[in-house]
């Protein structure tokens, strides 16, 4: 069972994680990758060999994150990189990734529920429609996989939905699904040696007018920084006084 992990990395994450970390794998994709590796391990234990392929679209230096994916258990990695794919919105991003994923005809595509920069959550479900696969978003648990049938639990607003899917399928996963491992020494060695496949738009026969900024239906026309929130009043003192003060605040806000 070749499983594919869409490890979407955006170099722009830097702006959010302001602790001097360079690029990183989108946190949600780490859960996706971990679940893909766990699924593979279970399949192998059941006597069904399978492969995990990490796919990422990004600038050439995103290769580093793909090596990290290999250190965490991916068997192969593919980097989609092309100037012509820059500026893609979610329509084009899912189109480009779907084209790469199709080459492997996977049974299960694991995606993070959203990225932490754009956090649209639209790419995973978009890939499913481009590929014409079954889909389940916000998956919190894989209950079973038997043959071409899979049962998953989706986390929704007020509970969980249990859904059966016929494979192939695209899943987007939430954090609750697992606790990602840290790279093993063997994984780190494998990551160093790994050959990363690099594809551009021509390798995938993608028409130029359907990729990148040119193919994207949406356009960003204005970007602004919202005014910073600043702290207001700060109270110190005896707990009973503070409780009284807090009561007064809640009273003013008309909630008590």
């Amino acid at each position, binding site marked *: 069972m070749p499983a594919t992990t869409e490890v979407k990395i955006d170099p722009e994450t830097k702006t959010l994680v302001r602790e001097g970390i360079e690029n990183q794998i989108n946190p949600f994709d780490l859960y996706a990758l971990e679940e893909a590796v766990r699924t593979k391990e279970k399949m192998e234990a059941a006597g069904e060999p399978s492969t995990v392929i990490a796919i990422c679209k990004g600038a050439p230096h995103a290769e580093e994150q793909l090596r990290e994916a290999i250190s965490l258990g991916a068997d192969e990695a593919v980097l989609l990189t092309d100037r012509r794919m820059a500026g893609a919105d979610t329509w084009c991003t899912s189109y480009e990734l779907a084209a790469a994923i199709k080459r492997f005809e996977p049974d299960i595509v694991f995606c993070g529920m959203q990225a932490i920069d754009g956090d649209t959550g639209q790419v995973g479900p978009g890939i499913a429609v481009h590929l014409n696969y079954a889909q389940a978003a916000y998956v919190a648990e894989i209950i079973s996989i038997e043959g071409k049938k899979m049962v998953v639990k989706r986390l929704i607003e007020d509970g969980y939905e249990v859904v059966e899917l016929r494979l192939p399928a695209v899943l987007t996963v939430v954090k609750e699904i697992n606790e990602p491992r840290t790279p093993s020494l063997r994984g780190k060695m494998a990551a160093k040696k790994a050959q990363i496949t690099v594809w551009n738009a021509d390798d995938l026969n993608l028409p130029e007018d359907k990729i990148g*900024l040119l193919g994207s239906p949406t356009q960003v026309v204005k970007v602004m920084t919202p005014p910073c929130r600043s702290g207001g009043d700060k109270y110190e003192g005896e707990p009973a006084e503070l409780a009284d003060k807090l009561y007064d605040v809640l009273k003013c806000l008309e909630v008590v």
Partner: protein
Amino acid sequence: MSIRVDETKCNGCGLCVRSCGTNAIEIKDKLATITVEGCTMCGACVAACRFNAISIDIEKQPREDLDKYKGVWVFGEQRGGRVAPVVFELIGVGRNLADARRSELAVIILGNNISDAANELAEYPVDKVYIYEAPELEVYDAERYCRVLTDVVREFKPEIFLAGATTTGRSFMSGVAINLYTGLTADCTGLEIGEDGLLHQTRPAYGGNIMATILCPYTRPQMATVRHKVFPMSPKRAQGRAEIINLTPKPNLFSSRSKFLEFIETVGEKVNLTDANIIVSGGRGVGGPEGFEVIRELADELGAAVGASRAAVDAGWISYAHQVGQTGKTVCPKIYIACGISGAVQHQVGMRSSDIIIAINKDPNAPIFSIADYGFVGDLFEIIPALVRKIRQMRGVEAVCRV
């Protein structure tokens, strides 16, 4: 397609450098220089430049006559006949957009046995309520919803199509936009019709560090999912009712590779986090699962939902469904009460758009105080029980007074 800096207009002020998310711009000899490898063509610098010196050239034409598309449509999300609260907010903003475009506002509702829900929607200021009823649509199914709505949009050609940014809206709308090859903007917090007649969609990105305004100029409909609690709920109509129109279901659209098996309600939680007007959240300072009892007690008194920081969830004190922050939920209640939460940036991105933030923390230097409207420095285990007592006591007094 290319990005260009006009040397005659650029004065090297550096605004673009700061706007760039990928550090692809530097100022060399008083001129902005863009490294092509680092640039993702996101357009942030084009928007940031006050001198119109940066441009991205892109030649594009609509593929069809866009004037054929008219009206604003709202997706009337329901489950078990109960209309999602965000729908009434969408009707409010949708009405304004439709009026600005001098067009009609319609709401479409999918499901089975949903005439009560349709009648309820007809009491709001929409022009039409479309019902699409079939046993196959009894529960949410991503594939069926996606196919049915694609088909309906192709037939009726709305100019604008809105849905709530719920787990449902966020999962099927993407597919509808893919099928129609049109744009979809996620989690909008601002929607208005510009002078150009287009829908100007504003959304937070990078965890709310920036606000981006997005257009969909060449394709229709212009589609958006909209965050909860950003727009006020629409009042009911002053008079009359909207016209209710039954659409004829097309069974050929109902094939699906997924099957709903069961719904598991989260036990013991009265209020859902994203719908809540008040959230009381606990963090590391809560100290353990039993500490959340104190949080729950206050939440019960206030009719609030219980939230948590990542630290509390990772420690196993409370389930992930409660997590607020970058890897959890983004919430914007009227009041957010952070108890024993230090307020790391990853937590802040999930709650900083709350109207009022109240923080209780022992550490006077906790970052949460820098964004809290009301900060209380002290032990939550002393303050909250005292507050709960006070609330109960005052309620008791009021009850007596009323008698």
